């Protein structure tokens, strides 16, 4: 029987209350939302926080809202709501595609975007999705003017299981810019329903006529430094979409990934997937952008 180490439990009644608890209880306190990453780690005693601060009552953090030229998603928004959102399916189609393949429907009822990003597991899909779509993370804490700071995903991700969110801070929102000419897609290979990816790739393009004005590529399961494939992205910018351009991006993505051989597959196979899935995702992203 897997039992977490003892801890004290607090239930936050507001974001300010959660922050006050974090400040008062110190660095051994952890926020729990859906709990589907943290509780398994606590059951395995990989994590043993002294205090858990439950934020599940904070409905103020559960929303998907258009705001000006962007979509703002509250940190407590569940995977299920990301999957069901017609707004996201229409404007940022990669998100629904990724969500269809994350864990299983029962887990998706609990898991949240904020929890997924803060877990920062290199095999976790939403980190790749947010990197590819150029998302920005809103972090609230006591030390910032106005109480919050906004960071891009490269700053947010500090390595495997590490983020820019400090011990007295919390992730409250994720923002996605909505730009014209967009198409995106997510490709994932996994061994069975509900499993982690062997490898996955998300591709986003923003077309200006027949030119890739901007591109975004995110990878999952391919190494902790490979979540955002920036060099492959750069190779696409300014080019017309073509099989040659996709192949070149795929080649660079594979070169820059650092997968480990494990029970899900050998390193060379995963590297092959990095290239192949990047190309497949790019092909479909461009098709979508051209359909408008």
């Amino acid at each position, binding site marked *: 029987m897997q039992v977490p180490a003892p801890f004290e439990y607090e239930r936050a009644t507001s974001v300010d209350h959660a922050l006050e608890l974090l400040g008062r209880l110190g660095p051994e306190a952890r926020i729990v939302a859906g*709990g589907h990453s943290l509780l398994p780690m606590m059951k395995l005693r990989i994590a043993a926080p002294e205090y858990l601060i439950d934020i599940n009552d904070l409905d103020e953090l559960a929303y998907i809202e258009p705001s000006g030229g962007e979509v703002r998603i509250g940190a407590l928004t569940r995977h299920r709501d990301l999957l069901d959102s017609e707004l996201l399916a229409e404007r940022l189609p990669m998100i629904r595609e990724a969500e269809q393949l994350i864990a299983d*429907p029962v887990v998706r009822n*609990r898991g949240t975007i904020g929890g997924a990003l803060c877990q920062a597991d290199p095999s976790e899909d939403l980190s790749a999705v947010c990197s590819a779509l150029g998302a920005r993370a809103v972090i609230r804490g006591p030390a910032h003017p106005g109480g919050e700071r906004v960071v891009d995903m490269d700053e947010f991700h500090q390595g495997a299981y590490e983020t820019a969110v400090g011990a007295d801070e919390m992730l409250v929102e994720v923002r996605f810019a909505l730009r014209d000419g967009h198409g995106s897609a997510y490709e994932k290979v996994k061994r069975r329903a509900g499993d982690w990816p062997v490898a996955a790739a998300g591709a986003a393009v923003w077309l200006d006529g027949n030119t890739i004005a901007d591109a975004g590529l995110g990878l999952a399961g391919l190494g902790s430094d490979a979540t955002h494939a920036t060099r492959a992205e750069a190779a696409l910018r300014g080019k017309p979409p073509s099989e040659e351009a996709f192949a070149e991006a795929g080649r660079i993505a594979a070169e820059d990934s650092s997968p480990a051989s494990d029970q899900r597959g050998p390193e060379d196979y995963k590297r092959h997937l990095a290239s192949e899935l990047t190309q497949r995702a790019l092909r479909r992203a461009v098709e979508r952008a051209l359909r408008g």
Partner: protein
Amino acid sequence: MQVNLTVNGDEVTREIEPRLLLVHFLRDELGLTGTHWGCDTSNCGTCVVLMDDEPVKSCTVLAAMAGGHAVRTVESLERDGTLDPVQQGFIEEHGLQCGFCTPGMMMTARALLDTNPNPSEAEIREAISGQICRCTGYQNIVKAIRWAAGHPLEPAGDTGS
């Protein structure tokens, strides 16, 4: 710490350790052993119960987190000696062999039919895709849920949730 919640329509208050998982709270504190405890890693789904009408894996929810919420277990399906159509469907279509996965399968089925009374086979398979049956009985589980979809709950039935 003290936790207050509703289980199968009844108010429940208990003194618990914060680290107590909902599955063990239901089985060991309340004696509701219909909810099974399987893989302990949120993979197998035999521990699925409904929390505010949504299926959740109770091995990965703290009892403390269920405080203030309405939990429904497999014990609530039968009412006054009448089986829920989901239970009857598992009988009619031979939806179980060993029965270990059955409580979780039935609770997911109930939640599916409450929101989608006439699901397609693909929707049923998707709904139970986070749950494992090792008697290789998925075909009959799907048939059982389809049977239940064809025999809706009586409107007078209070869901108790």
